[in-house]
């Protein structure tokens, strides 16, 4: 691993982020990344966070048109409430803060505590939970669906809405609309290694793949022998489309897990488009790249988000962050 010692991995990355992005205020000590012009007068603020190891999520999505602040936790560990309280105070313009939270027990508990503490300090907080991973059965017998690729859609679309000056209730409603219309499915071709463990966090023999893997290497639905890109696209989209048959054109995210080359991801994107064409699902936009990663895991995920005209307009709106950048 390209590290100094496991203990300083997150702080080292934040120092690098500060060096590379003067447009961000990076508080290495307190683990908060804030856009430099925050609080932006008259604007609802967007705040997210989660375990590190999924870069560019979330710190790489801080900037005009997306997040106002991000709180990175330790690798694969949710941040602590103190971080979110500090970040909320830094970005609140008085119009409220939307917490974007991926549905994992740790994130949910820490953000819930943070929301209570921030409200005690007079910050109006709304929370949206992202839970798009269809590999997990959503029942009272599990912690519910995991939040994965749809987080990018939520942060981009709600971020654009906030940038336009919409009120908190409207930004929150749009974020919920994105969550309700998004589904994901991930596949691992190799396990990921955390710095703390120094080796793979789960066993995945060569020539095997994990269908429905989570972004922390959580096991999925089943393990199979190696499949072609075309076969993987079919299985992944079958799971996604079965869960939520689209009524609208879709935004497509073809996401890399971290160690899969873009060459392969674009090949996979072609297969995804082929399957969607066959199923007569119209594609509005496609984004290909490493956006919600799992350290050095090889693999990919596909996320579909049903987009009406308003969501599409907000998706196309300008964004200027380290990880996502287009428009003016």
């Amino acid at each position, binding site marked *: 691993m390209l590290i100094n010692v496991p203990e300083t991995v997150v702080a080292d990355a934040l120092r690098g982020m500060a060096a590379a992005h003067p447009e961000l205020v990076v508080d290495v000590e307190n683990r908060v990344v804030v856009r430099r012009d925050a609080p932006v007068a008259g604007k609802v603020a967007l705040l997210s966070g989660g375990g590190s190891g999924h870069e560019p999520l979330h710190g790489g999505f801080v900037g005009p048109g997306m997040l106002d602040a991000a709180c990175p936790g*330790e690798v694969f560990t*949710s941040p*602590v409430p103190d971080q979110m309280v500090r970040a909320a105070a830094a970005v609140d313009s008085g119009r409220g803060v939307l917490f974007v939270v991926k549905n994992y027990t740790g994130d949910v508990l820490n953000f819930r*505590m943070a929301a209570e503490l921030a409200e005690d300090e007079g910050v109006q907080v709304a929370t949206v939970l992202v839970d798009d991973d269809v590999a997990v059965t959503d029942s009272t*017998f599990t*912690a519910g669906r995991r939040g994965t690729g749809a987080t990018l859609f939520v942060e981009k679309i709600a971020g654009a809405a906030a940038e336009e000056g919409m009120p908190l209730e409207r930004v929150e409603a749009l974020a919920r609309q994105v969550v309700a219309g998004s589904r994901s499915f991930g596949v691992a071709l190799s396990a990921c290694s*955390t710095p703390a463990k120094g080796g793979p966090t789960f066993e995945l023999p060569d020539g095997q793949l994990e269908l429905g893997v989570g972004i922390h290497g959580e*096991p999925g639905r089943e393990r199979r022998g190696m499949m072609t890109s075309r076969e993987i696209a079919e299985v992944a989209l079958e799971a996604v489309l079965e869960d939520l048959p689209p009524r609208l054109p879709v935004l497509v995210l073809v996401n890399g897990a971290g160690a899969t080359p873009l060459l392969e991801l674009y090949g996979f994107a072609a297969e995804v488009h082929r399957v969607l064409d066959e199923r007569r699902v119209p594609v509005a936009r496609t984004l290909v790249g490493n956006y919600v990663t799992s350290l050095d895991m090889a693999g990919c995920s596909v996320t579909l988000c049903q987009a009406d005209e308003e969501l599409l307009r907000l998706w196309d709106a300008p964004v200027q962050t380290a990880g996502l950048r287009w428009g003016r």
Partner: protein
Amino acid sequence: MDAVLDGGFVVRWLTAAAGLVEREAERLTELDSAIGDADHGANMQRGFAAVVKTVDTRPPGTPGAVLIAAGRQLISTVGGASGPLYGTLLRRAGKSLGEAPQVTVGELQTALRAGVKSVQELGGSAPGDKTMLDALVPGVEALATSFEAAAGAAEQGARDTVPMLARKGRASYLGERSIGHQDPGATSSALLFAALAEAAR
């Protein structure tokens, strides 16, 4: 049951817990990599090291105050699910003890029972879900007998999670595949009771 416990005892308990967590960190991470995300050892280590620092540098307080300070420190340091859950356990127990400078084992048991109830509410889980509760609940109940009995009951409770199907937390994503693995949260919870017995010896 008549032993009287002061703030110093609670500090010794938490220090012993930090020692055990340090010693068992690798095992906790190993268990967590089987059904979680391989960070439980490191998280608990970071949390309890911070707790020891906090209770060592503060002027010695009442048992309740020490537990509240330790709980707050865990919430501010650990992250993940274990931070809020362990933090709430200690903080709630501390609140329940109030400002008494000394407490009986029976009062400590009542306080920990209140703490466990809060953990149950926060996590939305129940005994049998393959969580911390499977060690905490029998541990707290066996305190009525002795500290050693509580340590034994919690340890047994942790072992009893092996055949269970996880219904909460990250292990629940595994479904049937969570069966056959000991729960890391229950395992670290058992360490808390082992530390309690160690502090009482």
